[in-house]
């Protein structure tokens, strides 16, 4: 590199007046005795001056410089980047709200924000409500602290607007209420769908269309389904997005009472998911929900719980119900029905007592007893059982607990003699005939001569 090149490379910094003093000295000295480099400097100034034409306006700003020049710009702005525009508007509004007096006076005043018109605010509110369905809602319920913090920040930011309308939207977001969808449907969905079609980024467009369909799902499910189909057909979306669209379809089918259709979509979707997928939980939930009907084949119901487990989405109450469903012992069938009634409003003590009474010694009976003992769905502790056996108001429950205690003595602690004593009492004293019969069966299996003799004399 020639000394001239070294100087020339520094000229832009010289023009910026940002050369360190030593280099500045060197460059100035060189220029004072080199005509060629001086000419270059002039030429650079000339080029730089011509490049002012590169400075172009930023779209979407309603400053007087650009506004109203042509109708075309207006239409264009109405089309493109709706989501981005909404974000801008919200932030602009937030800043404007603060500048209007909500902020302490000591804050440095940033450049004034463009005032948001009523229409802008409506669009912003609609987009916000739409975003709610897929984003804020998801963010608020996300297991990630960061996501929840982001949702809270968004909500804070928006509440700073001070506009009642938007504040109400935020309140709804926080309350997790469903009617945001309804409220936003008419205003937001069409705008979003329109924006989706015009986004350069097709994936973002597909996402927006999905939001639009979700917004519209309650108000106009047929059109929402058309849009969801459009995502797959026209947007060539990524797999996760395609799955979200399918899930949205299943939800719409469920809401309309088309359970077979929802079931089919959900089972295919579930089979396609990996554990930890953001959709794993919601899909598993809906699949269990759609099969949680009295008429549904128990095997199908069990399969839904198994799927939930594979997806890492099995809640304790699901695990409990699965254990009950899997209990095929003869005593259990009636108890199942009682559990089915009791569990949605869990725990209904009467129903539990009844279930326990109907199915002593079975998985269902044990679970009912555990719940009665206040041990939740975990197996009841020995002291809980003893307490129930001694102090429960209901004689039946006392018997059931005593039977459970005897079973434990027998199978867990192998204290056969002690177990026999309790079983003998139950076999003859239990008011609950199921318990008495179960105790006699057990004693017979143990080969208890005393009981045999008594039973024989009884007969």
């Amino acid at each position, binding site marked *: 590199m020639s000394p001239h090149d070294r100087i020339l490379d520094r000229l832009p910094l010289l023009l910026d007046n940002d050369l360190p003093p030593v280099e500045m000295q060197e460059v100035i000295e060189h220029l004072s005795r080199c005509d060629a480099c001086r000419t270059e400097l002039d*030429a650079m100034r000339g080029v730089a001056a011509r490049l002012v034409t590169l400075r172009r306006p930023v779209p979407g700003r309603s400053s007087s410089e650009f506004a109203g020049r042509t109708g075309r710009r207006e239409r264009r702005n109405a089309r493109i980047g709706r989501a981005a525009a909404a974000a801008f508007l919200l932030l602009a509004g*937030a800043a404007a709200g603060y500048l209007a007096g909500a902020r302490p006076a000591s804050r440095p005043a940033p450049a004034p924000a463009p005032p948001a018109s009523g229409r802008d605010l409506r669009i912003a509110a609609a987009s916000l409500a739409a975003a709610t369905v897929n984003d804020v809602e998801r963010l608020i319920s996300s297991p990630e602290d960061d996501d929840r913090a982001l949702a809270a920040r968004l909500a804070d930011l928006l509440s700073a607007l001070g506009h009642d309308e938007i504040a109400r939207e935020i309140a709804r977001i*926080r309350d997790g209420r469903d009617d945001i969808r309804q409220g936003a449907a008419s205003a937001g969905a069409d705008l979003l769908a329109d924006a989706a079609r015009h986004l350069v980024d097709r994936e973002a467009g597909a996402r927006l269309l999905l939001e639009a369909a979700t917004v519209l799902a309650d108000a106009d499910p047929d059109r929402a389904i058309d849009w969801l189909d459009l995502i797959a057909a026209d947007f060539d979306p990524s797999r996760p997005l395609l799955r979200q669209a399918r899930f949205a379809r299943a939800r719409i089918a469920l809401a309309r009472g088309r359970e077979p259709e929802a079931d089919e979509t959900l089972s295919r979707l579930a089979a396609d998911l990996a554990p930890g997928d953001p959709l794993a939980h919601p899909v598993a939930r809906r699949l269990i929900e759609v099969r949680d009907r009295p008429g549904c084949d128990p095997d199908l119901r069990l399969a839904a719980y198994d799927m939930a487990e594979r997806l890492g989405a099995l809640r304790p109450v699901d695990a409990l119900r699965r254990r009950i469903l899997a209990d095929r012992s003869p005593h259990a069938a009636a108890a199942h029905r009682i559990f089915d009634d009791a569990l949605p409003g869990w725990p209904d003590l009467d129903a539990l007592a009844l279930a326990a009474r109907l199915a002593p010694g079975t998985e269902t009976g044990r679970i009912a007893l555990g719940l009665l003992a206040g041990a939740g769905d975990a197996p009841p502790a020995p002291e809980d059982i003893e307490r129930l056996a001694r102090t429960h108001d209901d004689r039946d429950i006392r018997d059931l607990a005593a039977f459970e205690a005897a079973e434990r003595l027998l199978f867990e602690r192998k204290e056969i003699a002690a177990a026999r004593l309790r079983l003998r009492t139950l076999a003859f004293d239990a008011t609950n005939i199921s318990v008495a019969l179960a105790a006699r069966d057990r004693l017979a299996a143990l080969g208890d001569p005393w009981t045999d003799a008594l039973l024989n004399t009884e007969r």
Partner: protein
Amino acid sequence: MSDSGPPAPARRLESDAAADLAAAFVAARDRLHRIARAVLGSDDEAQDAVSDALLRALRGIGTLAGRDTMTGWLSSITHRAALDRLNARRRESDLPAEAARPAFHDDSHTDTLHRDGEVDAAVESLPPRQREIVRLRHDGGLRLREIAALLDISMGTASAQLARAYRSLRRRLGASKAEGTPHEPA
């Protein structure tokens, strides 16, 4: 919401930070858009990139402490968001960078007062890095110091790249108009 009593101190701080960010964002919006436009070449995509940047900034508010300026921080987030979009587009089309970047299209601004097709074409023909620096300098209005920080290069390198860009531009635009008198917009 307002009737739920005064917010807890922690939340107050959060929303203060968010409001600061909002104010800085609004103030810097045009600059951020120009930065994104310098990378992506289109207004639509720049708008999307700025929107990405905003979400990232909201997520990153917690890490803001100790940053020198909010605007600088937002600028670099925006630049990164724009590069991510460029890379995504490149992957999508499976084409080399040059082909993936569209010629500077901009149907909405052909009516802009100072448009000069010759200058645009000349800038378009520059190597990508030089083109980006020229745009950041003359569309974005950034100083070389800021450009260097944004691109994570030394000021010397930024200056040298710009000098070379000026020389190519001068050759392309022809000596007659480029030399001497600054161009006066009509």
